[in-house]
């Protein structure tokens, strides 16, 4: 019986030996091997297809979550007359500032389809030199209420094959001088869309052509767009552009420190008169067509892990600060005067200050 017991123990050890041995762990690199055997391999699935990647090498990091602060230095704003009832008025704004919060989360992430959904909140507070003396309704609402934007957006990237892709961007924004949580009617929401067809000929270049319905020039427009990203394979330079919305030259000191120089066209259409009567009927549905070109230098740097700091300094150049009458929020386009020459309710004049923006960003893998 003693031998049987011994046999049982030996048998158990024999059974468990490979398992026990397998507990050994190492993370050190193995000895060099002949890697040439991996040169010619086939996909195990015959039908496997490769698709163009959404990114190219060396792009500035995409942001999952961003928390920023924007500050414009002082400038003068001349609010135009409205008929004969409201006289023009020039006032000095000491500063314009506000927070900018954004999030952009991938909800579908496959080789053959990428869908990101995001949201943002922007706030603009106008700090007037002497708010108590203001008479013009534009100055009053800007001083008392400021402007804000709540928005939702989505980006859909659909590669068609190894080199070609379709890119679609959708946006819905609620812009106005409203208070939170009262907001304003959804019928004043402003919708934008861009659709592009493009090519990614290499890991260092991608480009696309398309058309967009956009409010970046303040009022509704339809414009052709050109998407172009490039990274030099032999130097630290690159280009990131979606013209005419933005264009930057990029210089990467290293993968954790990037300097960019260029511009962004930034704008939207803001409903006025949410918190108090702005203009009396029939001009009680008006929107501020705000658009500005930001010529800027932007420095981004990794702080720790996936947290990056970004700072930009530039010159804010006014493109539009006019006011339009839009009864019941039913928008229209002038298409740069081609389809309409409808007059503005106000054609305001605004100065061009320096500005800076700082943000903390959680960047995407």
């Amino acid at each position, binding site marked *: 019986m003693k031998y049987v017991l011994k046999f049982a123990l030996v048998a158990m050890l024999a059974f468990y030996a490979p398992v026990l041995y397998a507990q050994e762990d190492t993370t050190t690199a193995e000895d060099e091997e002949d890697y040439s055997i991996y040169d010619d391999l086939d996909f*195990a699935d015959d039908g496997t297809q490769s698709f163009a990647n959404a990114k190219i090498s060396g792009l500035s990091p995409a942001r999952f979550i961003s928390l920023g602060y924007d500050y414009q230095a002082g400038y003068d704003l001349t609010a135009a007359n409205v008929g004969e009832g409201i006289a023009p008025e020039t006032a000095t704004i000491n500063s314009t500032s506000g927070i900018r919060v954004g999030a952009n989360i*991938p909800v579908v992430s496959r080789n053959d389809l990428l869908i990101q959904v995001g949201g943002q909140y922007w706030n603009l507070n106008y700090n007037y030199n002497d708010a108590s003396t203001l008479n013009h309704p534009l100055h009053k609402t800007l001083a008392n209420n400021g402007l804000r934007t709540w928005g939702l957006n989505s980006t859909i990237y659909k590669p068609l094959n190894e080199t070609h892709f379709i890119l679609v961007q959708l946006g819905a924004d609620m812009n106005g001088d409203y208070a939170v949580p009262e907001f304003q009617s959804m019928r004043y929401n402003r919708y934008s869309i861009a659709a592009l067809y493009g090519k990614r000929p290499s890991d260092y270049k991608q480009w696309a052509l398309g058309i967009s319905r956009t409010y970046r020039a303040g009022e509704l427009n339809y414009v052709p767009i050109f998407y172009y990203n490039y990274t030099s394979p032999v130097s630290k330079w690159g280009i990131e552009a979606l013209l005419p919305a933005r264009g930057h030259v990029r210089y990467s000191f290293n993968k954790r420190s990037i300097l960019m120089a260029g511009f962004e066209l930034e704008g939207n259409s803001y409903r006025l008169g949410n918190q108090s009567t702005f203009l009396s009927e029939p001009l009680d549905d008006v929107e501020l067509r705000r658009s500005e070109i930001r010529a800027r230098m932007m420095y981004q740097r990794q702080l720790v892990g*996936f947290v990056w700091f970004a700072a930009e300094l530039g010159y804010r150049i006014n493109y539009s600060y006019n006011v339009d009458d839009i009864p019941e929020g039913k928008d229209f386009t002038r298409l740069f005067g081609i389809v309409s020459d409808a007059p503005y309710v106000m054609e305001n004049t605004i100065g061009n200050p320096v500005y800076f923006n700082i943000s903390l960003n959680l960047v995407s893998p």
Partner: protein
Amino acid sequence: MNRAILVALLVAVSTITYSFLGSDDAKADRLKGIWQPSHGKAKIKIDKIGSKYYGKIVWLKEPIDPETKAPKVDKNNPDESLRSTPLKGYRILKDFEYTDEDEWSNGTIYDPENGSTYSCVIKMTDENTLDIRGYIGIKTLGRTDVWKRLEMPSKKKSE
């Protein structure tokens, strides 16, 4: 007699336990092999070391750094002492354990393009396809890449 029963029980328990472990091992070992990420710039060989799974770069589409004209090294690694380590042979998947049906987790993935290491979970959607999700803290804040299994041409022909 009691001893005989004890012995029989020991052997039976050993056999049953081992057969379960073996079955789990076989399932877990399906991760082993050579895989290609969606960008097609590399091939990754996943092996088992000890009880965990590791993946190293065994092929690069562009093995030579166009800037230095030398074989690519891990130049973006935050640890300066590792920046001269060759990328070919570099272990970018580490410490994966078979934790759930068709799922390997508790591991990390390293991106040599930016020198960042992410938490990572691997899901096998079919025998030849992996969903590799790198994430930051929570899985929602991540990105999934689909890897496809590669095999030797001779193996395919012989099938």
